[in-house]
């Protein structure tokens, strides 16, 4: 009876606070949508002024028998940036200075010559505007694409080196400056020397010198053959073999759905539960209710139920809306609701604990935000991306608050991922018991 009376009273108060309700729902939905978009969409390409100073007639260079078209690498680079073509170096610098582009990339005219000589590294010029974040963005984009270009170029250069080594070993025709030369090759040279040695008398004074040259030819053939593998290894120092483990991997867009729903659920439940309990203190009615009118457990339960109910309605509406754009398995809707209810209850119980600790609605809301936001970021830190000690600390903090297990429960309910829904729900049940005890202690008269 007391529970129903208090629920009716709180719903009436909420109905008379339309701005609060709109903020309470709009804010978490906006945050959730932003997080979802950030997780599921590809980053925009940085605008970079681009100047290619290589004359078109020199865009192709010859390395041995290989033709290397430098414009091919230009196209590859454009996959990482949004190029704004300029015609002069001064214009490129002006674009960066004026903020039209966040950087300028200039291919110098002597790049093909530097590559053809292979005397050292060839260079491109990159000009930044001094903004650390933008510089980092462009640097990463250009460096990753240059690494790919270098890899391809190395492979081509190693093929050229291979052909020269083959010519040295086995001989053949060498085309150079329009002329053709017949190259003997070390293998044939060694055979000729061996045949010459067999025809010489054993006491011939020429024999020791020819034997020495024949021995050298034998060593050269063996080692030059092996050097081709060494050149190949330098051209591709690390090869990646991709392997997919058994089981289902959550696509990023459906994981983003679970994150967005968990964030909405968390904000609505924590803010509402903490705020409505703190309101009892602020209105001085808590002392009246404590007068044996309403047991502490009933009062806390009522706030938790109210917050869970509103939170689940908001989260389910949001999930249903997202379901119009992202394919979801509607056959699992019962499991979604279970995950939302238990997750929402865990958030709400955390909320009443916060509301019991502080005495004002504003302080309760601020504390709820201060506690909630870091939990989201900590739960989304990928494992292995930080040092061992810090990762362990993040794991512990994430485990003692309900966001991570709620996200796991929602992800398991929506995407059938590991850990299982049962494990996540058991984790949440333990947190509900813990925060419930804390709330009761904090609300003792």
């Amino acid at each position, binding site marked *: *009876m*007391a529970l129903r*009376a208090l629920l009716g*009273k709180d719903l*009436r*108060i909420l109905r*008379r*606070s339309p701005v609060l309700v709109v903020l309470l729902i709009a804010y978490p939905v906006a945050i959730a949508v932003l997080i979802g978009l950030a997780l599921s969409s590809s980053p925009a390409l940085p605008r970079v002024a681009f100047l290619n100073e290589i004359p078109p007639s020199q865009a192709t260079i010859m390395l041995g028998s290989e033709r290397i078209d430098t414009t091919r690498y230009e196209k590859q680079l454009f996959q990482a940036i949004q190029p704004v073509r300029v015609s002069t170096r001064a214009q490129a610098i002006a674009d960066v200075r004026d903020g039209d582009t966040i950087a300028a990339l200039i291919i110098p005219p002597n790049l093909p010559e530097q590559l053809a000589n292979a005397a050292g590294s060839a260079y491109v010029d990159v000009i930044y505007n001094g903004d650390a974040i933008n510089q980092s963005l462009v640097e990463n984009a250009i460096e990753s694409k240059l690494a790919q270009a270098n890899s391809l170029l190395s492979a081509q250069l190693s093929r050229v080196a291979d052909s020269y080594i083959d010519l040295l070993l086995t001989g053949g025709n060498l085309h150079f400056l329009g002329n053709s030369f017949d190259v003997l090759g070390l293998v044939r040279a060694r055979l000729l020397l061996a045949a010459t040695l067999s025809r010489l008398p054993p006491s011939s004074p020429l024999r020791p010198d020819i034997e020495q040259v024949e021995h050298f030819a034998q060593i050269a053939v063996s080692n030059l053959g092996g050097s081709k593998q060494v050149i190949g290894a330098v051209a591709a120092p690390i090869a990646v073999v991709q392997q997919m483990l058994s089981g289902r991997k959550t696509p990023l867009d459906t994981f983003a759905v679970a994150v967005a729903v968990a964030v909405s659920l968390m904000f609505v439940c924590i803010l509402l539960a903490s705020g409505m309990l703190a309101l009892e203190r602020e*209105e*001085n*009615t808590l*002392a*009246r*209710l*404590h*007068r*044996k*009118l*309403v047991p502490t457990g009933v009062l806390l339960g009522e706030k938790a139920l109210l917050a869970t109910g509103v939170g689940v309605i908001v989260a389910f509406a949001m999930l249903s809306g997202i379901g119009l754009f992202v394919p979801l398995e509607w056959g699992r809707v019962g499991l979604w609701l279970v995950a939302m209810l238990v997750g929402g209850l865990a958030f709400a119980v955390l909320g009443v604990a916060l509301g019991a600790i502080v005495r004002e609605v504003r302080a309760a809301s601020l504390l709820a935000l201060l506690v909630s936001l870091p939990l989201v970021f900590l739960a989304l830190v990928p494992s292995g991306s930080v040092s061992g000690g810090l990762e362990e600390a993040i794991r512990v903090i994430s485990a003692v608050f309900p966001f991570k297990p709620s996200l796991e429960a929602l992800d398991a309910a929506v995407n059938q991922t590991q850990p299982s829904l049962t494990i996540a729900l058991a984790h949440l049940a333990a947190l509900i018991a813990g925060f419930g005890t804390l709330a009761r202690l904090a609300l003792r*008269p």
Partner: protein
Amino acid sequence: MIQLQATQLCKRFGERDAVVDVSFELREGEVLAIIGPNGAGKTTLLSILSGGLAPNSGEVRMSGAGGVGWVPQQTAVYSKLSVAENLRLFARLERVADIGHAVEEMLDQTGLRSRARDEVGRLSGGNRQRVNIAVGLIADPAVLLLDEPTSALDPRQRARLWDFINARVASGTSVVFATHDIAEAERYAGQLLVLADGEMLFSGAPSELGGGHSDADLERAFVSFLAEQGH
């Protein structure tokens, strides 16, 4: 007939004694004023009597039917609910048998009928205090506890409020109120209880405080009495 009996009540908060060995009796239709300096333990004693705070030792005993109605110092009602909604809610929580009748009666007695549908947050301080008292009386308690009920009211509102309380007293309700207003205690209370640092220094008729005094000098007699007692 004794409506309320407090026996050797003690309450400690950590190392601090808030109420020490307080005993008194209150008869039907009697008015008791609790006076004392700030921090004397007046609100703590009222909270124990109301059942909102458990004493470390001692006992509070009620006689006959009807419970305790409590009116805290600061208005303790929901500002987003209307006057009638507040009364109805607390009537339900107090398990009043006929909620509609109780609400109508309180609206009439407090003179708030015309404001019944107004949100409490939009009422004046005096009217809010009337709602606060009406909530304390909604279950028709045998004993009404009031914590500094007139501290935020102007003289006209104070007079109207005491008219209302006296009408309840005349119908048999016993009243205990805490106040800093010595003249108010003398005017309306038949019994006086003086607290300082949780200790009960005096219990008796106002005229007995300080061994007799003129009407205008009760406040001076009270201050002298505290000084004599080392407070």
